């Protein structure tokens, strides 16, 4: 009974958070002299309204799923991977490099490019992992620093070795592309690509590793209690490094969504893409679970894409959706508040 209650609560917090976020977002619109009803109608239309919008929503969600998985995997093993953004950038570059410089049949080239991205992300995650395991350097600091190194290093490499006209690399070869004319066609020529399949597959992989394998058992044990893990003969250092490697691999795969899917190249980035940081929010809203992350990523992807229609059709600036997203995160993070509210509500109902 307790378990059921706990699970119900897990679902209740994000749902109530989203509703509260939309509600308060609406109030802010009212105060700012916008019509929230027409704004939200436009937002919903912008998410589901037609095939193009729906396709774009799913496309935007694909890398968010993967970056959310990256954060969640690390979190489940007791680590805060704030470096998803950097791991995503190196993964993006590695996949594009493989996409441009190899000539292989599609069945080999595409998986190879994706794995190259994941491997690069893993490598970028392993460095803070080793520093943490061997020298007890806190991973939050190192992963943040690694983000900057990734940003400027990838820009430098593109500029020095891979530059094409337009401050970007060349396009990848078709054999390494995730793009799908069929998916584009059924979604009224959105940029939807097969990345969503990769992302959902990755969600299944994370669930499987964490909950069904001895590796996951060890990773979670180390995350909860290093002393008891050591006592039980689990190699704590190895598992910290492994956790960061797997987390980084998900982040790197998120980069391949952009490189092999949406853009087919890599640009010189003036700033972070934000997809890696959004992963923290996705993971939080999705309660660090595979299914939750997919739903949360679709929601955030939808809000971002829908906000474009909201601006054009209802004249409400996209920034307001940014505020709504921030509010949702705020309410999830302060789940204590929601617990208190629901307790009051249920108590009131009983008496």
């Amino acid at each position: 009974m307790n378990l059921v209650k706990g699970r119900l609560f897990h679902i209740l917090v994000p749902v109530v958070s989203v509703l509260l976020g939309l509600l308060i977002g609406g109030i802010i619109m009212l105060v700012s002299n916008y019509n929230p009803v027409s704004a939200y109608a436009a937002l919903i239309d912008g998410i589901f309204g037609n095939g193009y919008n729906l396709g774009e929503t799913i496309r935007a969600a694909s890398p968010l799923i993967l970056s959310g998985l990256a954060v969640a995997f690390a979190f489940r093993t007791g680590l805060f991977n704030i470096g998803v953004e950097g791991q995503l950038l190196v993964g993006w570059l590695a996949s594009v490099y493989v996409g441009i410089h190899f000539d292989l049949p599609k069945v080999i080239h595409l998986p190879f490019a994706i794995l190259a991205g994941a491997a690069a992300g893993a490598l970028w995650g392993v460095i803070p992992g080793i520093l943490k395991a061997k020298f007890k350097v806190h991973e939050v600091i190192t992963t943040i620093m690694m983000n900057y190194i990734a940003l400027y290093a990838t820009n430098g490499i593109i500029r020095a070795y891979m530059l094409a006209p337009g401050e970007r690399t060349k396009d990848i070869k078709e054999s390494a592309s995730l793009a799908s004319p069929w998916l584009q066609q059924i979604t009224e020529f959105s940029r939807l690509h097969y990345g969503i399949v990769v992302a959902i597959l990755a969600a299944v992989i994370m669930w499987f590793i964490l909950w069904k394998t001895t590796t996951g058992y060890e990773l979670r044990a180390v995350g909860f209690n290093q002393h008891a893990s050591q006592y039980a003969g689990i190699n704590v250092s190895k598992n910290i490094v492994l956790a960061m490697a797997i987390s980084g691999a998900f982040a790197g795969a998120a980069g391949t969504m952009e490189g092999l899917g949406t853009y087919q190249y890599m640009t010189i980035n003036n700033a972070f893409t934000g997809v890696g940081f959004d992963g923290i929010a996705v993971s939080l809203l999705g309660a660090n679970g595979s299914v939750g992350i997919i739903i949360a990523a679709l929601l955030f992807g939808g809000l971002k894409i829908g906000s474009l229609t909201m601006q054009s059709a209802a004249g409400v600036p996209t920034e307001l959706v940014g505020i709504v997203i921030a509010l949702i995160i705020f309410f999830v993070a302060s789940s204590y508040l929601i617990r208190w509210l629901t307790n009051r509500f249920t108590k009131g109902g009983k008496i």
Partner: protein
Amino acid sequence: MEYVIEMRNIRKEFPGIVANDNVTLQVKKGEIHALLGENGAGKSTLMNVLFGLYQPEQGEIYVKGKPISITDPNVANRLGIGMVHQHFMLVENFTVTENIILGKEITTGGRVDLKKAAKEVKALSDRYGLSVDPNAKIENISVGMQQRVEILKTLYRGAEILIFDEPTAVLTPQEIHELMEIMKKLVAEGKSIILITHKLKEIMEACDRCTVIRRGRGIGTVDVAETNPDKLAAMMVGREVNFKVDKTKASPKQTVLKIEGLVVEDARKVPAVDGLNLEIKAGEILGIAGVDGNGQTELLEAITGLRKAVKGTVELNGKNITNHKPRRVTEAGLGHIPQDRHKHGLVLDFSIGTNMVLQTYYQQPYSKHKILKFPAIYDKANQLIKEFDVRTPSEHTLARALSGGNQQKAIIAREVDRSPDFLIAAQPTRGLDVGAIEFIHSKLIQERDKGKAVLLLSFELDEVMNVSDRIAVIYEGKIVAIVDPKETTEQELGLLMAGGKKQKAGDRSESR
């Protein structure tokens, strides 16, 4: 007779569990009233109801004869009910005075008047003979002193009724004695005390009356003067309890563990174990007696592979296991009930079922090709839960949610079930109630009778003397004597533990 506190027929439910069922507690003014029950019997729940943290489903509370509903701790405070928590709620780097006045600061012109407050604290401390230095920092005073600060905190807030939640769990014998004196002084000054405990000795020593709870139900209230520990224990557990450990004579066989010239350094690189020799044979329980901090922890960590030995050897069944990794030592035939069950024994956020395979999850049948086999894991868990009487709602319950005694039973179940040739039991009964202690002792003896070697480390001299077949006294990292528990006395052991020489002639230590 009017009661200062009267809780009538209290019932408190949690999802799936009735924590209190028809419990009545009546406390007279100026008495020390014990609330006795096993771990998980519902003592803390009842006190949390009184303190306003929980609302009862049924029952009434009267304070000084008036019916009252205590909706939150502030109400309890206003009624003069104060709680001395088991885990202190103090700000480490504040002074005693700052801690005591926290939330009730005396201010003059907007500034906290610490001098005046310190004077008041001093006066209060002197009145009850607490001898607390109001200007000392919390981090610099002993645990016993910190507890007195907690007592002062409640007194400063005008408490008339003090609840002590298992106050002696963290204290040394000397400090326990002093606490008992303080409590007597408090009631002499007109305060009333509720003492939550499962230690019968304390009740007999200090309390006037005693209310017993068993599995959430109120069993009754007795005058301490008209009862004895056996009767109290029977009320608490629901059956006769055997304080004497039943065991036959040991029949030791071959040597299982052999330690020679072991040197282990502590965190400061000082040799904590310093040239230690020890042998343990199959079919015997060897108890280690010693004052805490004489190398016991480091010795166990070195044997189990958690800490590197600098010199010397450890052999298990004739195989050298010195400085082997914990898993290799475990696989060589070690079972280990660790000292700190929360830190080392369990992953508290795992279910009790998954904790049961913490040492074996990577082996068949619990996993195959690195894939966990949950049916096998839960089958094993359920078998152990049944066999070792681990009281848990289900195998999926988080280990964190179980009481200390049941957590310990789970660890013992896990370790004993692997049938290791050598079992280390480090403080296996710390903080447990008599029922659980009896159970654990009988399990250790059962293992011995199966021909296993058992190493028992305990800081309770009674336990070492009752359970062991031989006692090794450790002092400054060396075994200074090996004595026969039947022939030694507490005085002799105490002397040896303090570094004194053995008085009787003969070298029994070498003859076995």
